């Protein structure tokens, strides 16, 4: 999959996903601790 002509799109999506969860999961967890 990663070596295909669309491998760049795959890497970009994976990089954004990892970046998103690295930022959003701690944010959501902190908000949960604050409200619960």
């Amino acid at each position, binding site marked *: 999959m990663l070596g295909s002509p669309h491998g760049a799109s795959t890497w970009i*999506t994976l990089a*954004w996903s990892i970046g*998103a969860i690295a930022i959003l999961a701690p*944010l959501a967890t902190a908000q949960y*601790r604050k409200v619960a």
Partner: protein
Amino acid sequence: MSLTTAPTLTPSKSNRSSLRWALSDVLTIARRNLLALVRIPTSLVFAVIQPVMFVLLFRYIFGGVIHIPGVDYVNFLIPGILVQTTIFGAVGTAIGLAEDLQRGLIERFRALPMARMAVLGGRTVADLARNVGVVIIITFVGMAVGFRPTGSFVSYIQACLLMLVFAYCISWGFAFVGLAAPNSETAQAMTFPLIFPLTFASSIFVNVPSMPAGCSPLPSTSPSRSAPRRCEGSCSAAPTVPPPG
């Protein structure tokens, strides 16, 4: 009366068991959310009807005036609809958590001896499971309206998995929105400005170069522009669409 000595756990065993306990809690909460979906099937039915309506709308009403060079529009559309549907599914995470918070359910969960991450983890895992079902249904609906992935089956599955991973990661952001909103109605309203650029102002329905300059606020490397194109790549043996942006 006899005294028994409590078994002592080594730190590694203790960590392992607490991790297993946390995973078990996550799965329990996920099961609770999925059961709610099954017991109130109306929400599930409408979660499926909405993307089907988008498929029919863009395939038969707007599709005639949208031309994507080098590719059949339905093969361009369906991967985009799949990404849109999984992003819309993440809105359910925000609304569900806001509802749980409003009804005091999260406070009750908090009082239980369970892992703290279980509530959020369970909600996002349940929404991921729902997204898997919706992706399968939309794939079949797409095929019924002419969608024909000509790449390999394995490549298509990989592309769908990639979309699901992206949707799962995004759902944590919507979980934050749901917890920050005072009620479920506000949570729903708060999600729209977030999903709008990710869906309608991206390459989900049209090719971005056809838009006036600056109309898509997202960079060409954003996932809502790259994910559907990755999926589309699995739908055509030879990619002929110019890269968006």
